[in-house]
């Protein structure tokens, strides 16, 4: 990778982290581009460790990390470009929400007027204006989560690292926060999120990193990751007017594993080892008089990929 490319990415090169004898992450090689990247995995899989490594809160036992070309042990440069919303639900004592964000900006060296303006903007962006002058000690879980978000993005960083940022948010605020992440990603920033709520990850991520027991199991765009899982045939849902005819037609193909008529009798769930050839076959079937209303992959999502690679039991955690 060229130096210029590395300056635009979050890069892990053969990174391992051990806490004494306990494995945090092992032999991680990643190159994360701008956009929304989700770190997905069960508790203890190494998501937070990866985030702490990116931000210098912990140091790798082996290997090298750079964030937009900056090593994390150089905080005075790193945190002008990076904001981190940690999972720690603790705050310096006696601060209001506004003071929490404002003080961070003053610590960063911003003069009063700039810090005041940026703090105001960040607090407005997370919809916490009315509670800004109240003590954080009196905030609800969701409000504390939002003020941490405001602090992480108040200095307009190029990379936002967010550890379980949707925890404790009510559905409305959740939707607003997801929209905020999308807008930040559209501005060309890195938004790196850890989550174990798979359907949310699926909805917002440009790419995912799947972790299990400290190892990266898969990474990339979810569609690409799914295609790499050859041991599980692709599932495709076809809505059509003659599901019986459709099933008997597709059964003639050797790459077809299973075709099951849906309980409502309005379509067929197909399992195939070769999705590309199946899609070509669909064209021919459509010309033979069967009216195909819709075709959609049924397991081309994070939940399915997660189940295939990590297991059903863990995915429920």
């Amino acid at each position: 990778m060229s130096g210029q490319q590395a300056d635009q990415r979050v890069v892990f090169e053969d990174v391992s982290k051990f806490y004494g004898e306990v494995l945090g992450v092992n032999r991680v090689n990643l190159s994360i581009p701008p956009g929304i990247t989700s770190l997905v995995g069960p508790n203890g899989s190494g998501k937070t460790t990866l985030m702490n490594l990116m931000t210098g809160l912990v140091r790798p036992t082996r290997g090298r990390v750079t964030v937009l070309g900056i090593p994390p042990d150089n905080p005075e440069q790193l945190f002008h470009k990076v904001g981190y919303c940690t999972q720690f639900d603790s705050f310096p004592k006696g601060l209001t929400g506004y003071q929490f964000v404002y003080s961070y900006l003053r610590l960063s060296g911003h003069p009063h007027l700039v810090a005041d303006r940026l703090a105001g903007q960040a607090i407005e962006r997370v919809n916490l204006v009315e509670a800004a002058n109240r003590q954080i000690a009196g905030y609800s879980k969701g409000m504390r989560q939002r003020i941490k978000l405001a602090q992480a993005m108040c200095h307009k960083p190029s990379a936002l690292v967010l550890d379980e940022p949707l925890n404790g948010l009510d559905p409305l605020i959740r939707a607003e926060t997801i929209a905020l992440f999308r807008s930040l990603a559209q501005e060309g920033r890195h938004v790196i999120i850890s989550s174990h709520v798979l359907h949310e990850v699926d909805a917002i991520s440009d790419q995912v990193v799947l972790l299990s027991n400290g190892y990266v199991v898969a990474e990339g765009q979810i569609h690409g990751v799914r295609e790499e899982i050859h041991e599980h045939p692709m599932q495709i849902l076809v809505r059509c007017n003659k599901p019986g005819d459709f099933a008997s037609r597709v059964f003639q193909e050797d790459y077809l594993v299973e075709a099951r008529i849906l309980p409502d009798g309005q379509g067929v769930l197909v399992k195939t080892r070769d999705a590309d050839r199946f899609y070509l076959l669909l064209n021919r079937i459509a010309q033979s008089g069967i009216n195909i209303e819709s075709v959609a992959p049924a397991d081309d999502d994070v939940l399915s990929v997660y189940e295939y690679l990590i297991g059903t039991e863990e995915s429920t955690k």
Partner: protein
Amino acid sequence: MSLRRLPWALWRAQILSILRLEVKKTFFTRRGFWIYFLAFGPVLLYAFHSFVQLKAGRQGDLGDDTHIFASVFQFFFLRLAIFFGCMGIFINLFRGEVVEKSLHYYFLAPLRREVLVIGKFLSGLLAAAIIFGSSTVLQFIALYCYFGSNTLQEFLFHGHGLEHLAAYLGVTLLACVGYGSVFLAAGLLFRNPLIPTLLVLVWEAVNGFLPALMQKASVIFYLKSLCPVNISESITTERGSLLALIAVNPTPASPAAAILGLLILCAVVLALSTLQVRRMQIDYGTD
């Protein structure tokens, strides 16, 4: 990089920000109430003494009271009040934040860790200097307030009164600097504050018995050298007690050497602390 090109203005601004955040925490904690009690205990004692003297209409003896002040200052105020007060203030500057899981707030700011150590040290020093400095002044007033105004004027302006007060204030400040740096470092190295406190307490207590070179690695050696009234001689000749052994300072440093020595000791301890903070990782789970 030359010293001139370093970002001094940025560091100054960052240190001021740390001070704003820390001073409030250091001054107004319910858990720190005992520090005020230690600091202002002698003031109450002296005030009671003066009240009794006034009530009885007795004339005091300036010489006796000067020795009483010197003894209480060396045996209680320096060795116990400031010592434990600084422990309470400085050991928590980092350890307290680890316990409360809030240290990452600083570690996630674009802030050199050396600047953080200095900022935290200065915030502790400001609090300690104000608490113990004001106590020193109030002790002085409380002890001598029952003397007549003529006697007092004579003592303050023509005797050694003001000179002594200035010296005691200086020693108080230097004690906060010395013990502050030691306990800041202790808070970084030890999880249990009792262990370093006992170690330092014993080290400081046996200072008088140590070889001359080792004495220089203690705070009390320099402080004893700077105290304006030498109490060891009178105690030694009068009683020959354990107190006399503790108070003895066979090879006192000159004032300039004592101030310089203490500041160098503080600088070395702070430098070691910054190395430790640079290596520090946030792993609240194990603390």
